[in-house]
């Protein structure tokens, strides 16, 4: 049984990979139009304002460890950080990235340095990518001064958070700056829904790359997610029907 499940898992991975490549190739000249997510529209406006008024963008990558499945949201956040670093390249200051996991902090530094190199920014700030704490609350406590004291006008909270994300959104609210927030944790999503200006619900945070035009594979991955979702719904319905009929 476990062998069959393993093969099914491998099949899903291969199917997803093939679909992503095929869709990225077929739609390379005419990118798909996705439904409007107001958070991303306002994020683009906020990024424009950051460049215009010389303020900073803060990207918070959560405290998901890179060696656990929770790293996926941080990796999605890093991809967004790279794109946002490009978009703010005309601004005076590079974005700040905070995280609660040391390997993610190192990757955020690397991402920011790579962005400064490719966009010809004068000098990259060595402490722009930083580790602020290793436990959820110490991470939040360390990230709050970055939101408050470093001339930040737009915040992107994207990664693995817990309820402590409420402290970050509260700090943003007090500074009267913009925030778009998303997490892979349902509890954090509830907190974000109640406290953030622009919440990302469900898997919307994984679609961020497609909405900020990071590349054809990002757009294709959103379509693949939709296809897999419909397959999953069909499988659940068929399973329920077979159970009801007494076959399972």
């Amino acid at each position, binding site marked *: 049984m476990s062998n069959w499940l*393993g*093969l099914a*898992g491998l099949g899903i*991975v291969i199917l*997803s*990979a093939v679909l992503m490549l095929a869709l990225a190739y077929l739609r390379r000249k005419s990118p798909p139009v996705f439904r409007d997510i107001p958070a991303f529209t306002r994020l683009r406006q906020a990024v424009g304002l950051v460049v215009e008024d010389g303020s900073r963008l803060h990207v918070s990558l959560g405290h998901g460890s890179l*060696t656990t*499945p929770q790293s*996926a*949201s941080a*990796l*999605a956040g*890093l*991809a967004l950080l790279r794109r946002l670093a490009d978009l703010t390249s005309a601004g005076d200051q590079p974005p700040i990235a905070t995280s609660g996991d*040391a*390997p993610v*902090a*190192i*990757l*955020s*530094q*690397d*991402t920011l340095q*790579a*962005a400064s*190199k*490719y966009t010809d920014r004068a000098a990259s700030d*060595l*402490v722009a*990518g*930083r*580790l602020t704490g*290793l436990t959820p*609350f*110490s991470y939040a*406590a360390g990230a709050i001064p970055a939101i408050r*004291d470093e001339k930040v006008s737009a915040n992107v909270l994207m990664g693995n958070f817990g*309820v402590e994300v*409420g*402290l970050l959104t*509260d700090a943003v*609210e007090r500074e009267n700056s913009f925030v778009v927030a998303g997490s*892979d944790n349902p509890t954090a999503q509830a907190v974000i829904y*109640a*406290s953030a200006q622009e919440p990302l*619900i*469900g*898997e919307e*945070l*994984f*679609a961020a790359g497609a909405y900020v035009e990071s*590349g054809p*594979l*990002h757009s294709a*991955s959103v379509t*693949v*997610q939709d296809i*897999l*979702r419909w397959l*999953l719904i069909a499988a659940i319905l068929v399973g329920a029907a077979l159970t009801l009929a007494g076959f399972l």
Partner: protein
Amino acid sequence: MNPRRFPSLNAVVSTAFAIASGLIVLAGYFFVQTANGQVSLLTDLRLTLLSWAIILAGFAVFIGIINLIQVHVKKIQRKQKGAFYSLLLILSLVVTFLFGLIKPGQMGIVFTTVQLPVEASLMAMLAVTLTYASIRLLRRRLNLLSVIFLVTAVLILFATAPLPFLGTIPVLGDWVRPFLAQVMAAAGARGILLGVALGTLTTGIRLLFGADRPYGGNK
């Protein structure tokens, strides 16, 4: 030379290593045993790579601490706002480090007497913060979903917390709360987690394709 057109050798090598490692680890999950029941070479490689990753992650914490010190030393040097707290942080770090060297068996005391009470205080502050945020929610986003969110939160609160002189409210505690928590919320959370799993899968595939490269330069 335009770096956009000519990626550095470092970027090419690190991307090749990352993709190869990712593929080996992925394949190791699916091909655990050989035909004669022995542990496959891929599984051995997967476990070796994962243990290397754990060692590197441990070393990364050390680098992260240096980064933390750099951030706060810079703040003190520039006499920025909150520099006093930065000084306090560095002093605490040094004291904790020395305490760990002198009495390594009693490091737990630092966590139970300092870290835990401080984090519990932050949790208590969070309760107030969230109550305030919920009150402001209707002002920020007045729509049906916000109303449902607030009504559900209030119902769960009244059904869970025993009220003075009344105790638990019978219908709310016996019927409404279990229905909301175990049927509605559980179904919604499962839907969200399935979506997150699909997002995780596509993020992983993008990394394997080298479309997202958070190491050694991206695009």
